[in-house]
């Protein structure tokens, strides 16, 4: 009797133990690219933290803004300054979204899946709805997410009215992300 109770208890504990479903990427990469006839500008950030919840499809990106690096120091200073990204006041940008076609993705089967995400991107104090298309690659439990999307700077009150930035920075830039996820322990 005692034995069966113990077995029952063990089964119950196993059954109710939450399955780890959250994936974490602690050093994801975001880059952006701006093209104008005068100049091509790119910047990279390798310090992005992201989570991906397999059960709900929720995706979060937290972006430390001062980790964006530019080829030229002056560009980096402009980027951080009060007039543009104001990174001292707003040190992080954030994307919160959901994979809308989660049912088409099988996390336990190797393959490359298209992932569509809709959500909200917050830069400085402005939050806007965004949609992004990406690919999820699953290889022996390793999950990689690639996305590419366009972004209009003026939507986030990032505007350049005079000087070099107004002619050399594109109105619409391209954002690329790459994240390798591991199970949270």
């Amino acid at each position: 009797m005692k034995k069966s109770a113990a077995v029952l208890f063990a089964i119950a504990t196993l059954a109710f133990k939450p399955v780890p479903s959250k994936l974490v990427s602690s050093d994801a990469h975001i880059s952006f690219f701006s093209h104008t006839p005068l100049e091509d500008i790119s910047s990279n950030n390798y310090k992005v933290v992201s989570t991906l919840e397999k059960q709900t499809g929720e995706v979060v990106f937290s972006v430390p803004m001062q980790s964006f690096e530019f080829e030229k120091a002056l560009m980096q200073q402009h980027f951080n300054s009060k007039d543009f990204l104001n990174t001292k006041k707003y040190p992080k940008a954030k994307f919160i979204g959901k994979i809308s076609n989660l049912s088409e993705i099988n996390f336990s089967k190797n393959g490359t899946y298209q992932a569509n995400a809709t959500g909200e991107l917050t830069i400085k104090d402005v939050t806007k709805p965004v949609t992004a298309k990406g690919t999820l690659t699953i290889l022996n439990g390793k999950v990689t997410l690639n996305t590419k999307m366009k972004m209009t700077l003026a939507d986030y009150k990032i505007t350049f009215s005079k000087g070099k930035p107004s002619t050399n920075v594109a109105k619409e830039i391209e954002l690329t992300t790459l994240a390798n996820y591991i199970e949270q322990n």
Partner: protein
Amino acid sequence: MSGFHPSCVLYFKQEKAVKKSVKRNIAIGAVIGILAGAAIVIYLFNMPQRDVQATKTDFSLAASTVVNEYLSNADSANEKYLQEDGDSKILAVKGQIYSITEDLKHQKVILLKDSAEKAGVSCTFTSETNAHVSSLLPGETVTIKGVIRSGAGYDEDLDLYENVIMEKCDIIK
């Protein structure tokens, strides 16, 4: 009217000469000014990134100290450590190595954290300083110098504690 007195003629000649040399000086000054301006613009435009390791350390402290400053008041910690132009404070942080990993740029990343703590200081090295990490092991205590990029804190959307981020790091002790 037989003309000016000879001394007057001399005076006019001198004045002409003075005017000429003033004009010449202005022209030379303008050229120097334009060249200097252009040189400053070119210098600023091509100015290299700050060499963090060659720059004076602003704060020397324990990893847990800076983490706790952020956890207790992120705004005042940002005010203290972040700079508006992105060239934020340079810290020398002492702590225990929790993990050694590599980011997507193949830079070594050391997390300084006590296993009992919620957050630590994540220190990213560079292609030049990566090699200095190779002999280190988790559990060792080291001092790492680098520039702070962002602070620690609990993020409810990630449902995680984020670490303090430092980059351009090197081991100094």
